[in-house]
């Protein structure tokens, strides 16, 4: 497995970790949320604002651990510079992730239309972010393996 594939795998692991943290936070710590709109909006506003720094932090920690393990295993320091192949692959991965998020965004409008609880909309949105992130990393791995011909 190449360095870039391993890096995408680390990103995927970070996303899965964050999804687990979100599920724990949302469904275990605060399972009995009030159904009032005000409380739900406040809860999800705070949750989404906390998810962003948490994602950055988890990614940084995981990448530091990965670089250390990779250095010990291979004995060489990899240059983390994106060349034209990396950029082309990232471009395709971005496109796939964007499409995934858009599908989830449109799906998140269904609970609003059907007047279902607002937490369903937010959960679908958060799920959309996580799914897009997973699609991004798996697309990267797929294109590094398959190539771009």
């Amino acid at each position, binding site marked *: 497995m*190449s*360095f*870039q594939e391993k890096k995408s795998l680390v990103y995927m692991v970070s996303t899965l970790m964050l999804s687990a943290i979100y599920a724990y936070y949302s469904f275990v710590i605060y399972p009995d949320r009030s159904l009032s709109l005000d409380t739900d909006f406040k809860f999800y506003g705070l949750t989404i604002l906390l998810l962003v720094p948490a994602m950055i932090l988890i990614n940084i920690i995981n990448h530091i651990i990965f670089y250390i393990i990779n250095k010990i295993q291979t004995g060489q320091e990899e*240059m983390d*510079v994106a*060349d*034209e*192949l*990396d950029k082309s692959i990232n471009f395709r991965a971005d496109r796939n992730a964007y499409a995934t998020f858009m599908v989830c965004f449109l799906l998140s409008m269904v609970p609003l239309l059907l007047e279902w609880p607002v937490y369903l909309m937010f959960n679908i949105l958060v799920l959309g972010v996580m799914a897009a992130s997973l699609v991004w990393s798996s697309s990267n791995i797929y294109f*590094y393996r*398959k*190539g*771009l*011909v």
Partner: protein
Amino acid sequence: MKKGKIKTNIRTLRFMNSEMTQQQLAEAVGVSRQTIVAIEKGKYSPSLELAFKIALAFNKPIEEVFSYEKAEG
């Protein structure tokens, strides 16, 4: 319409250039070793600029490094 294929003989040229490694070639043209591996395996068609850089690294005209194979049919 079927796509053609870009063929390369980088591997042969590396061998003829004092067995230059993929890493050395990658450093000479400013890309990662992974990219050279992908080009050699035919998994990636380089940009025109990179193709010229690779040809220059071997001091060869570009047509001696890369060739285009038309799709059949």
